């Protein structure tokens, strides 16, 4: 065992990278669920975002355009979910699952000609002086912009939900759509906006994997991150900062356990491999002892005639 081989600065830097796709997808889904909609299609929207972003950034040479395309791609796929659940009033669970299956297949089709292609690099933000501070510089100030966007989004979602009228209306729709409707709020319209936002965030998360974390396109490359994001929203009790904490814990322990393995620490590998799941769940369950509950209308279908 040689713990000195683990560079704590690189470790923290790479755990932030590992956590970002999860965070982006979870924040999007959190808003969707706060509006009372359960969209199980996160995995599908992520993978479509991953290939949309990859394809556009390879074609244009600009990772920025790629990320914009990824957000649009994820949102467009979520439109399908909108059609099914908000207009055709289909079951949300079934529609979400269908979205995932469709997204996985469709992305494989779209990605046929992009296997083995190297995407353009986004580069890191380099702020003079601040980025050069030892330790703190590489940890906090030498990342790609999307990583900061993830944190900024978390803060924005938290502030909007907590302090603004828009947030209040969104939560009202999620808690009791009949009452919100009676007050004159456009339940369907608000939910559509929330679903599109969720789709865009999931798309960004997917593109973060294909453009920055790996960086390449491979079929099915999200490999279950969308499902973990869904679970994270529940364990985070629908609170943005807890979702951030959960994502960083999960991503962090995933990277940490790989580091410990490589350094030859004498903890059985089985325990290390399961630790991200166990510790994240444990911490978030303990935090959720304050009995915060799910939005009351979560997963229920709304029709104005009711």
């Amino acid at each position, binding site marked *: 065992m040689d713990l000195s*081989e*683990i*560079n704590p600065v*690189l*470790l923290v830097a*790479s755990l932030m990278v*590992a956590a970002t*796709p999860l965070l982006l997808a979870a924040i999007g889904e959190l808003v969707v669920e706060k509006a009372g909609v359960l969209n199980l299609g996160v995995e599908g929207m992520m993978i479509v975002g991953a290939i949309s972003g990859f394809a556009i950034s390879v074609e244009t040479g600009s990772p920025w355009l790629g990320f914009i395309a990824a957000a649009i791609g994820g949102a467009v796929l979520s439109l399908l979910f909108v059609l099914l659940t908000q207009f055709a009033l289909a079951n949300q669970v079934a529609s979400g699952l269908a979205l995932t299956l469709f997204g*996985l297949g469709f992305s*494989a089709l779209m*990605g*046929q000609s992009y*296997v*083995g*292609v*190297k995407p353009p690099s986004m580069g890191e933000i380099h702020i003079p002086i601040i980025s050069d501070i030892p330790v703190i510089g590489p940890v906090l100030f030498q990342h790609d912009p999307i990583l900061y966007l993830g944190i900024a989004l978390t803060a924005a979602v938290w502030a909007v939900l907590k302090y603004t009228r828009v947030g209040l209306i969104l939560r009202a729709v999620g808690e009791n759509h009949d009452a919100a409707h009676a007050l004159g709020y456009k339940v369907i319209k608000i939910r559509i906006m929330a679903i599109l936002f969720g789709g865009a965030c999931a798309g960004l998360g997917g593109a973060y*994997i294909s453009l920055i*974390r*790996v*960086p*390449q396109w*491979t*079929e*099915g*490359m*999200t*490999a*279950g*991150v969308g499902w973990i994001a869904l679970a994270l929203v529940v364990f985070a009790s629908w609170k943005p900062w807890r979702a951030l904490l959960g994502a960083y814990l999960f991503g962090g322990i*995933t*990277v940490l356990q*790989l*580091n410990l*393995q*490589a*350094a*030859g620490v004498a903890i*059985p*590998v*089985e325990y290390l*491999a399961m630790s991200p799941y166990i510790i994240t769940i444990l911490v978030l369950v303990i935090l959720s002892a304050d009995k915060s509950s799910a939005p009351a209308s979560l997963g229920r279908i709304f029709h104005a005639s009711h």
Partner: protein
Amino acid sequence: MKFTSLLASAAVALGLATGAVAEDKTKVGFVFVGPVGDGGWTYEHNKGRLAVEEEFGDKVETVFVESVPEGPDAERVMTQMALEGADLIFTTSFGYMDPTINVAKKFPDVKFEHATGYKTADNVSVYSARFYEGRAVQGHIAGKMTKSNTIGYIGSYPIPEVIRGINSAYIHAKKVNPDVEFKIVWAYTWFDPAKEADAASVLIEQGADVILQHTDSTAPQAAAQEAGNVITFGQASDMSEYAPMPRVSSIIDNWAPYYIARTQAVMDGSWETVNTWDGIAQGMVEIGEISDAVPADVKEEALAMKAAMADGSYHAFTGPLKKQDGSDWLAEGETADDGTLAGMNFYVEGLEGEIPQ
């Protein structure tokens, strides 16, 4: 009463219908652990499937299901294939071993072929390739080329196939470079590009300048390319899109001849249970082109070793070799028997860490 008879006649009709189809065409099913576009393991199995289609044309129909988890869900997929009239089913991952045996019991007339396992039955054959021969070549190149004397190894699951690969690579790296050290990380997945890339990055951060992978995607290659000055080897497939650097060579699994032969056997009615384990000699394991990033003399030695394994004059596990705990395994000049290799659950002397149990 009426309802049951209705069901019965429907079942008979269904049986006749599938029977009729099965008569003209041999239906071959494939169960894949990853997506066919993984660029590695499943990609090569799918190439084998396409070769079967090309060989037999209209006489054969192939079906496949990709990204099937190893576990109970695999049984459902295989059962479905058998019910849909498959005559021959290839299950292409180690974790399908027990599901294959279970489903095979229920369908005695369907032939099953399980890759990399060791359980056979009257209608279940097993087949695998001697990947460890390819690992020997990789170990040699890795040992010669590493500057940090640290070689990173991304393991999938601690099963004999993976452990053989680690041992074989280590023995041959150590032989040419006594200072070499292996860092082994278990990913506990066959296919998860993000995690595979993370594992590669971690190993590189801890000083490895050679990455060997036993997972299925090309993500570690991308991570190595990003890091620069790190060499890798294509796994299961050539992964030539990452040549000449970081990918300097590869192990290519060539399943096509086997799949064609076994499909032919089902057509002829000559299929019987076999235990196939072919290597470089039979062409099931191929060594991908060694790129110019490798010095010419190293390349020559690697090719000589490959030739020696092909003609049988050299075995990748030749004594004197000791086990990790220091006990004797193979005496001078002795070679490992297939039984020991098939169930290999120990590291050779010099490797650090324990195999997860």
